[in-house]
């Protein structure tokens, strides 16, 4: 089901545009196109640095079928490799583990360093001979995937063709530069995930907009009303929403989380929530940030990985507050599940035409659709 005609209306101004056609949510062929033209062609989030905190920590990640391996090397840097041995294509690492010395392929024991170099090729020239003229080790290191770590999120550009991360996200990096400082993951209590039966894009779209807040999050309404929110939309880059009335969580004893240092006044009561296209949702506040990686497991199956970060390590934070904050956020994110799953179901209605945006309220959502459509069209033009 090819729908290039449909994308023309997606690319119009918000007042005239339609949403992405149903096929983008329910057609496996379009999902496959998006895999390459959207998720592999841009900087997608695949994991968190805090999951491989120490030298030698290795974590395999399956990204839409592509086997990846995250490794922290001797210099503390995060490397992402294709998790496939250069010899016969065996999967190298199947479970998260600490690599003590070399990454050894379980098949014929070719060994790689943490930096991906091919260290040895046992018996490759016959029993007891580990060298051969035609085995050029410096050409047979692990294949490296372009990676960039920002706010502890490990982003990868699988096809290697995207602009450098700092360039592709220059506007957002500038917007949030005050938050470029050390953050500390809140520990086990600051980590949770949600399995959602929806296409990954619907989670992005719902995150971008504040229109649904009074209905889906009535609890937020008492202090964070619709009129206290503003749209964030940068055509071709990112979108989301901001609030003017962020209030710090306070314990019964009156304790609050410590603030990030050196923030300007705007953040006293301001907070922003931005979809970092394609699949990372972030939020920043004076006293915590969070990132949600949307793992697009299948066409209508997404895992939301949520991790919350603070200005100081968890042992310095007020007792019980990390748990309370996670509970509060989890309630909000769980409230969103029925709508992202419901929109997925709704797209089985063959008469649905992509939908009619509110020009006043749906700009950030439209901005995402416009970006997806632009990427799809560019990808289609390239592969045509």
């Amino acid at each position, binding site marked *: 089901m090819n729908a290039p005609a449909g994308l023309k209306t997606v690319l119009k101004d918000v007042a005239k545009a339609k949403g992405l056609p149903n096929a983008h949510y329910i057609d496996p062929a379009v999902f496959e196109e998006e895999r390459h033209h959207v998720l592999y062609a841009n900087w997608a989030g695949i994991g968190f640095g805090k999951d491989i905190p120490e030298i*030698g920590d290795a974590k395999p990640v399956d990204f839409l079928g592509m086997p990846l391996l995250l490794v922290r090397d001797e210099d503390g840097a995060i490397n992402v490799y294709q998790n496939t041995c250069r010899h016969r294509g065996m999967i190298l690492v199947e479970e998260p583990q600490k690599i*003590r*010395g*070399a990454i*050894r392929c379980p098949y014929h*024991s070719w*060994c790689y360093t943490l930096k991906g170099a091919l*260290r*040895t090729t*046992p*018996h490759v*020239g016959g*029993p*007891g*001979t*580990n*060298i051969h003229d035609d085995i050029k*080790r410096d050409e047979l290191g692990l294949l490296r995937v372009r990676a960039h770590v920002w706010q502890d999120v490990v982003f990868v550009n699988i096809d290697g063709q995207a602009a450098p991360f700092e360039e592709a996200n220059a506007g957002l990096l500038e917007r949030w530069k005050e938050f470029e400082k050390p953050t500390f993951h809140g520990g086990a209590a600051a980590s949770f995930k949600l399995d959602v039966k929806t296409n990954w894009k619907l989670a992005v779209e719902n995150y971008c907009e504040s229109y649904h807040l009074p209905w889906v999050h009535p609890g937020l309404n008492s202090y964070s009303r619709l009129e206290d929110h503003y749209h964030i939309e940068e055509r071709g880059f990112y979108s989301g929403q901001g609030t003017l009335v962020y209030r710090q969580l306070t314990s019964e004893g009156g304790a609050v989380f410590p603030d990030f240092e050196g923030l300007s006044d705007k953040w006293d009561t301001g907070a922003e929530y931005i979809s970092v296209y394609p699949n990372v949702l972030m939020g920043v506040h004076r006293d915590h940030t969070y990132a949600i990686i949307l793992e697009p497991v299948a066409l209508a199956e997404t895992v939301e990985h949520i991790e919350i970060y603070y200005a100081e390590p968890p042992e310095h934070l007020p007792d019980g507050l990390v748990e309370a904050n996670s509970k509060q956020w989890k309630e909000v994110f769980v409230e969103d599940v029925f709508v992202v799953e419901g929109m997925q179901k709704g797209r089985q209605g063959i008469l649905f035409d992509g939908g009619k945006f509110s020009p006043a309220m749906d700009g950030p959502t439209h901005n995402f659709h416009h970006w997806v459509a632009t990427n799809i069209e560019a990808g289609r033009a390239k592969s045509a």
Partner: protein
Amino acid sequence: MVDVRSDLDAALLAAHAKGDGFELSRLYADAADQAERDQDTDAVCFFLTQAYVSALETGLPSASVLNQRLVQYGREVVQADLMS
């Protein structure tokens, strides 16, 4: 008389089963030493290689010496950074 080979085989199997890299490397290095006494170069290098891979995987300091021994037999290339 004790059957040295089958004792070694049993110990190797046990170490493989446990994934005990230190023990594996030690046993294979012992086997290499024995083969050296028997002047069986191919066997020496086979066992040294097995010992070397386990040492590499486990991050043992002995990897450096094993590498050098294999290099001396012309069976491996120098991995200078193992020395550090």
